[in-house]
């Protein structure tokens, strides 16, 4: 996630010449005690958690000796804040505070520029004292206006000899935010001390998700804003997105249980941010709880949609699968239909699925999906742009209430018998298998016909018509070929696609691991 912990943000401040309390972070009580011994007591021990008001929940404590630090750290490291278990504490020297100030930088969407909020009164509860807060517009290149900043500070009760240091701290906030491309950076409080220093006593910082790639030094593992630590499936989904930039794939897990009165957990698969949100609202107003929020859009590859569906169907207890986006998509929708059809077939979907594939090529998309899924135990229905989210949400509710099967149990994909024995060639993230023994004249003809020119007939069987290296990125075309052949009753092509990490989540060693 692109939020930094206090100790991480403070390290960046220190690197840019700002004063922070001496200290260090620890993941065990013992390490916390050692830091305290080195610093000399008394010290303050603070949980590292993305929340305000840590003091109020007992997350900030003072300790007079290392033994007490160990004792307190033990308690702090067993706390949970929101959905996040506390895994780190920060042990710091105690600073003798004289005045508490506040400085933060945010990106103002109306001004399209950074803005600095500065309070020379300080403390917590900044929102309530909005009247004391100065708003300093920033030039994106040079930051706040120096003369104005000096004037504000001069008019405050900050002691004359510390005024330059306060001004530097404010400039420092701008420089650090700009350097690391922060969406927000807040120092609350910025303190003046009895020994005449200006110290950043606390710090919260969020880096722009889209800029994380330019800052590998920050070690941000998953650049997504979530209200919980990334779950295993979210990590898998993030890796899928990073490995395939054709279209976008967003996946956030929201619920694993339902509240009383809910009609059940739904695997939710949107298309397009706004359409997904609107569809989420529609299915929730039908009384369902969504297990996850997913969005594949921007012309995603069939392989990406397939992997998204596999991720969604790795969640247990789903009563159905609901797919709906804007409904009037600019992208070609049949690619999504192929990806979904493949995933549903491999998993032998038992729960009902309602998928709205409105937009370009919707007729072909719905035909592919409905036809390819006709034999599955779960009813799969495709809809188009003239079917509204409300209508299909109601239809989904009907199908779920008529369904007699148990909620979904995640499983590994089934693979045809010829996988492992037929002929094969590699593609990005997997392998294409051809059932050479099972190919009759008709099957070979159809395989060639549905291969987008990638296969040709040779000695009665389909073989590559182009060089092996030229098909590496043709996963979507082969997925289409596989689905079309299954529809035609000649399933002689199978695309084995990796979803790294999914087998571990399913606890199922038999899950396909193509390409090995």
């Amino acid at each position, binding site marked *: 996630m692109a939020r930094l912990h206090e100790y991480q943000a403070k390290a960046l401040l220190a690197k840019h010449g700002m004063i922070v309390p001496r200290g260090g972070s620890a993941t065990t009580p013992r390490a916390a005690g050692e830091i305290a011994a080195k610093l000399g007591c008394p010290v303050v021990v603070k949980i590292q958690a993305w929340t305000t008001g840590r003091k109020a929940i007992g997350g900030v404590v003072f300790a007079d000796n290392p033994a007490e630090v160990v004792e307190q750290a033990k308690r702090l490291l067993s706390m949970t804040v929101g959905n996040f278990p506390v895994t780190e504490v920060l042990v710091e020297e105690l600073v003798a505070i004289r005045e508490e100030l506040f400085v933060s930088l945010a990106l103002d969407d109306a001004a399209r520029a950074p803005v600095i909020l500065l309070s020379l009164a300080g403390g917590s509860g900044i929102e309530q004292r909005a009247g004391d807060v100065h708003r300093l517009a920033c030039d994106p290149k040079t930051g706040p206006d120096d003369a104005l900043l000096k004037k504000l500070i001069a008019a405050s009760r900050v002691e004359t000899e510390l005024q330059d240091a306060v001004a530097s701290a404010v400039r420092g906030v701008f420089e650090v935010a700009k350097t690391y491309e922060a969406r927000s950076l807040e120092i609350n409080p910025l303190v003046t001390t009895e020994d005449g220093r200006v110290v950043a006593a606390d710090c919260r910082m969020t880096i*722009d998700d889209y800029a994380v790639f330019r800052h590998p030094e920050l070690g941000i593992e998953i650049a997504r804003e979530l209200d919980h630590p990334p779950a295993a499936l979210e990590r898998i989904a993030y890796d899928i997105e990073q490995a395939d930039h054709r279209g976008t794939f967003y996946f956030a897990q929201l619920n694993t249980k339902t509240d009383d009165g809910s009609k059940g957990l739904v695997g939710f698969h949107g298309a397009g941010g706004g359409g997904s949100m609107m569809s989420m609202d529609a299915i929730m107003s039908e009384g369902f709880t969504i297990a996850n929020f997913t969005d594949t859009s921007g012309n995603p590859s069939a392989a990406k949609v397939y992997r998204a569906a596999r991720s969604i169907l790795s969640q247990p207890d789903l009563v159905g699968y609901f797919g709906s986006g804007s409904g009037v998509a600019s*992208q070609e929708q049949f690619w999504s239909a192929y990806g979904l059809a493949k995933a549903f077939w491999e998993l032998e979907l038992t729960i009902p699925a309602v998928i709205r594939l409105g937009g370009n090529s919707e007729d072909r998309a719905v035909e592919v999906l409905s036809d390819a899924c006709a034999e599955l135990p779960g009813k799969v229905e495709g809809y188009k742009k003239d079917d509204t989210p409300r209508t299909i949400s109601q239809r989904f509710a009907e199908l779920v209430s008529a369904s007699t099967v148990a909620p979904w149990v995640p499983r590994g994909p089934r693979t045809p018998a010829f996988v492992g024995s037929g002929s094969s060639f590699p593609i990005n993230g997997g392998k294409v298998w051809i059932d050479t023994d099972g190919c009759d004249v008709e099957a070979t003809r159809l395989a060639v016909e549905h291969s987008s020119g990638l296969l040709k007939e040779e000695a009665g069987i389909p073989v590559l018509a182009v060089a092996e290296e030229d098909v590496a990125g043709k996963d979507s075309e082969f997925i289409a070929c596989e689905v079309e052949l299954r529809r035609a009753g000649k399933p002689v092509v199978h695309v084995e696609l990796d979803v790294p990490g999914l087998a571990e989540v399913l606890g199922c060693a038999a899950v396909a691991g193509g390409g090995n």
Partner: protein
Amino acid sequence: MAVLIDETKRVIVQGITGREGQARTNLMLGYGTNVVAGCTPTKGGQEVQGVPVFNTVKEADAYCRENHGGPADVSVVFVPARLVKAAAIEAIEAGVKLVVIVPDRVPVWDAIQIADAAKAHGANFVGPNTLGIISPGKAVLGMIGGRAESAKAWFKPGNVGVISRSGGMSSSTAYYLGQVGIGLSTICHVGGDSVLGLRFPDVALLFQDDPDTEAIVIFGEIGGSQEEDLAALMKSGRVTKPVVAYIGGKAAKEGTRFSHAGAIIEGGRGTHAGKVKALTDAGATVVSSFGDLPEAALKAITATSGGGSAS
């Protein structure tokens, strides 16, 4: 009339030789957009669907002045996200007054620098992360509709302006309005990011001043302050045409981002309830179900003028 784009505007495409650039140039030409030149560094001298390619915006602009009677009015950018800042600023510095930035994942500090350059040069931009703008029957910028024949079939000309924070829902809103007989002057997807060029209030002012737009339909979302800022313009009397709105993300939880970088509730700001209240208090009609939007829009325009139907 329409806002932002019509068939007379001279349009150039940056990144015209790339996969997306080529595909969307095809859409724009097929729909009637006056695409006069393209740019891709090192590809100068080539042609894409008959459109000449130049190495720089400056060269493309000079060609435009020489052969098409005036400067490049608009540039549509289709370059990878990390190159967007340089491309957009190049266009702005070359004098292009409207830059449409389609790519997703543009770093927000890059967007801020683009905004800074735009301000210095008196230019506007739409996006980043916009599906584009379309004035039905006239011209399209970006990729709304995907294919020219779809765009022609889905969007009807008329007197209602659409502004959306969602790309897909721009098309969707416009299509469903068309289904009840409402035609549109212009549809503008402002983009899904948190820092954007033209925002709801900016585009609403364009519609307010456009004699052929009688009402404004918006598709809003949680996060940010665009809806609230539009409400403020309505309250101050600067926007007086009827506004009909749907706000997505009612069920969204605080602190989790829902796809769009801008769609996140932070520190209690940008909530669904707050936006609905601001717009309602300002006199807008806010529907709670997206499906109710077309009927509400119909009511709003018949109440004012009886116009707005598809021509």
